[in-house]
């Protein structure tokens, strides 16, 4: 990816995470996840009753590579809350199990509705 492409993708990512409180960069969509790790992360957010927007990186190769560079993180999914990178599937899972994720969402003023 050249620098000018990365600038475009970065701007796109910045818009996504600025305009939405919770954004999941994932493979596939929440209804049809295309990878087990993405599916597991969607499941957690759904369990917590969090409204989130998602970006399907499989639709766009530049986004797929760009988000890795943007976050300096080599894998997908990636979760952003209020513009902050929170982690990938393993970290989200750990934070969910320990209750930290719920706490973080509440601290950031995000509406949750755990089932």
């Amino acid at each position, binding site marked *: 990816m050249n620098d000018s492409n990365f600038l475009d993708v970065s701007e796109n990512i910045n818009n996504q995470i600025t305009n939405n409180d919770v954004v999941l960069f994932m493979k596939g969509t929440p209804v049809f996840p295309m990878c*087990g*790790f993405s599916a597991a992360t969607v499941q957690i957010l759904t369990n917590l009753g969090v409204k989130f927007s998602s970006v399907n990186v499989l639709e766009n190769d530049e986004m797929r590579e760009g988000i*890795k560079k943007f976050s*300096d*993180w*080599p*894998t*997908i999914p990636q979760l952003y809350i209020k513009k902050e*990178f929170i*982690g*990938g*599937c*393993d*970290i989200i899972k*750990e*934070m969910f199990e320990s209750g930290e994720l719920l706490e973080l969402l509440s601290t950031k003023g995000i509406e949750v509705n755990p089932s």
Partner: protein
Amino acid sequence: MAMEKELIKKFIKDFIPDANVVIEDLRGDGDHYSATVISKSFLGKTKIEQHKMVYESLQGKVGRELHALMLKTRSE
């Protein structure tokens, strides 16, 4: 392209020498692993920083040759 379990362990230990590393081949296909890495060098670091250290040790292989690596890190 898959990666050998022992090779993954070696990469991590070369980079984090005190690490206690346990690798499991989750499906026996040489492509889906879980790694538990315990090292004092994680003390005071966030989970993101800890995971980044392990990713760094694998020199860009995670998300490429190493398709799936479930990762758990802790300092003790």
